């Protein structure tokens, strides 16, 4: 009985300790640059050059058929073909330029690309004055999924010294409402239980974020975090409207599985003023 109690208490206290996150920088040795004949082409190339210089990466350029392309560029005829080429190229990061206007025919289907390629995708839709600007101030939107650990490797690697990195964890009120509605029918939730659920989510989020900040102790930048409860898209948009950010980072993959939440999907499509990095 003592052994069991010891085990139980030890596990309880282990749970109470923040997760020790092992966040490692990614080498970014291979960059894939997809230029699609949009105003952001120049910027996407400039950003890639900046990164190549910082990380000593090799850049491979991908161009749609029918456009002027340098000799070394790889030409693709469809998004499916591009996905195949990117997979073969084993890029660490894919940079894509896309049109800034909504409703325009996009030369590359972003949804297919996001689901088809495992590497993170950096989407640029507008011309940048400074190709280093995305890495000076980063807004990282989190959904509290603990499997997102690997995602921090990218913003941590990309952030410049003295950069501002805000980890914005939004507890999705809509999701809680859905759970509440579903559980109300089974009688498993009442007002007290709902408050408790929210409280738990807040505490888990807080612990997670503190874990990330702790893991960044030796980084040349200082990450901050904020916890919000509300609709994810509106909260992130509101934060971006402050104009302080050069890059929005959103979660996408969970340990290699193609998963994307509705909110992240929306953000990926509607945020056009700043580059979006879909991890």
């Amino acid at each position: 009985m003592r052994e069991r109690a010891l085990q139980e208490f030890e596990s309880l206290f282990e749970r109470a300790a923040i997760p020790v996150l092992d966040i490692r920088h990614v080498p970014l040795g291979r960059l894939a640059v997809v230029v699609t004949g949009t105003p952001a082409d120049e910027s996407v190339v400039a950003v890639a050059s900046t990164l190549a210089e910082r990380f000593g990466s090799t850049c491979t350029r991908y161009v749609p058929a029918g456009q002027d392309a340098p000799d070394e560029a790889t030409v693709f005829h469809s998004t499916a073909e591009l996905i195949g080429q990117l997979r073969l190229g084993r890029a660490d990061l894919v940079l894509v330029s896309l049109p800034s206007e909504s409703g325009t025919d996009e030369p590359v289907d972003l949804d297919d690309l996001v689901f088809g390629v495992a590497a993170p995708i950096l989407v640029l839709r507008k011309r940048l004055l400074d190709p280093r600007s995305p890495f000076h101030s980063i807004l990282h939107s989190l959904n509290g999924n603990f499997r997102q650990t690997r995602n921090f490797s990218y913003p941590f690697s990309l952030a410049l010294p003295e950069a501002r990195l805000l980890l914005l964890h939004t507890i999705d009120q809509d999701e809680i409402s859905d759970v509440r509605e579903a559980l109300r029918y089974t009688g498993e939730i009442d007002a007290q239980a709902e408050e408790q659920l929210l409280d738990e989510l807040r505490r888990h989020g807080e612990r997670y974020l503190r874990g990330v900040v702790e893991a960044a102790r030796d980084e040349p930048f200082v990450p901050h975090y904020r916890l919000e409860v509300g609709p994810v898209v509106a909260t992130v948009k509101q934060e971006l409207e402050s104009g302080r950010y050069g890059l929005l980072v959103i979660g996408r993959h969970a340990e290699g599985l193609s998963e994307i939440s509705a909110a992240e999907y929306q953000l990926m499509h509607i945020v056009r003023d700043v580059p979006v990095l879909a991890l």
Partner: protein
Amino acid sequence: MLTAWLVLAETTAHASVAPYKTWTFAALLVLTLALLASEKVHKTVLVLLSALFCLLLAEAWHLLPHPEGDHHLPVYISMIEWEVIGIVIGATVFVEIAARSGLFTWISIKVLKASGGDPFRLLILFSILTAIFSAFLDNITAMIIIGSLTIVSCRKLEFDPKPFLITEGIMTNVGGLLTLISSIPNIIIGKTADISYMSFVFVAVPYTIVAIAVSMIVARMIFGRAVSPIRDPEARARNQALVAAFDEWETVDSKWYFYSSAVAVVLVILGFALKAQIPILNQFGIEVVAMMAAAIMMLLHARDVEHALDDVEWSLVFFFVGLFIIIGVMATAGVLLEIGRVLSWVTAAGGAYGAVVLMWLTAIFSSVTDNIPLAAMLAKIFGPTAQAAAEVPAAQWWAVVFGANLGGNITPIGSASTVVAVTIMKKNKLKITFLEFVRIGAIFALVQLVLASGYLLILQRVL
């Protein structure tokens, strides 16, 4: 000093017990205690079998009294100290439910954070916390909670947990002195000597505070660098951040459960403390407060009733039943009277230091055998009746209390909490040999017993 009770004790023993019968029962007692110390047979089974055999033999030799008339309890029922069993059951249920609320784990993490991750502050704060927890929880639960947190926090802070666990194991026994219900020997002696909860606290607290403070100095000297304060500001900041990252609410399932348990714990402590002043309640023993506390907790947390009742140490309850019967038979057979004579001679030889000698003897016996039978036996020897108990000098009762509680610190098998401390170390692959523990534990015990000796001499003059 012991002559008054010897006269009374003789009245408890059967009027004409043949010496060979007394010696036969004495041999049975020695055999039972030896087998208990060897831990070859489960102690409850052993004691129940021994009790049964003693009863049958006493009946066969016509030693058991059989009162006339219809309205009397069987002799073995009246031998059992039901008040002690009531306290044990009531307190266990109460503590089990309160412990499930996360209240104690919450406090533990708060204390860990207050240490700032500094080894010496952690040692001091955890030692004080262990002592306080063991005053209100049972020693095993206190050691399990603090010991588990010690392992987890030391792992994060990269400290060697051994010095902390050994000190905590020892501190549970010091904390066991704090209140009347902190340990079983206290309950037994307190009940026999009719010491109230608050009187017990008033006498025990000053000693405990001094003992903890001195033990910390001893720990610092024994463990050296392993528990030294951190000087490097960078390492200090790192450790501070590591302990600050613990989330105390993570161990709490329900805030209602948590807050209601906190209120209940405070009320129950007040109930124990103020029982003598509360009309009606003051007509009952402390076991009634313990049972009421258990009932209130079960009412508040009806979901946990079955678990809490399952977790009552029923083996301990049956152990008590057997033990009290053995002691009852030994009293009837005149064995306790003989032991009393020997003790009387020893303490008389000690002169003014009689109580001190008694304390050291109790401590030495407690270090190798269970302190519960020892305390129960000494309680019966010194106080076979309420009148006899009242004749015994207070310092003598305190000698038994100090000896029984502190003696457990000498060896790893001397008390349940040191056994748990060693179990935690073994579970975490931290090597500790019996002798290694004795080398450390004996120093602590020696210092604490020397302090207690001085305190007993003061008590002799004051009480």
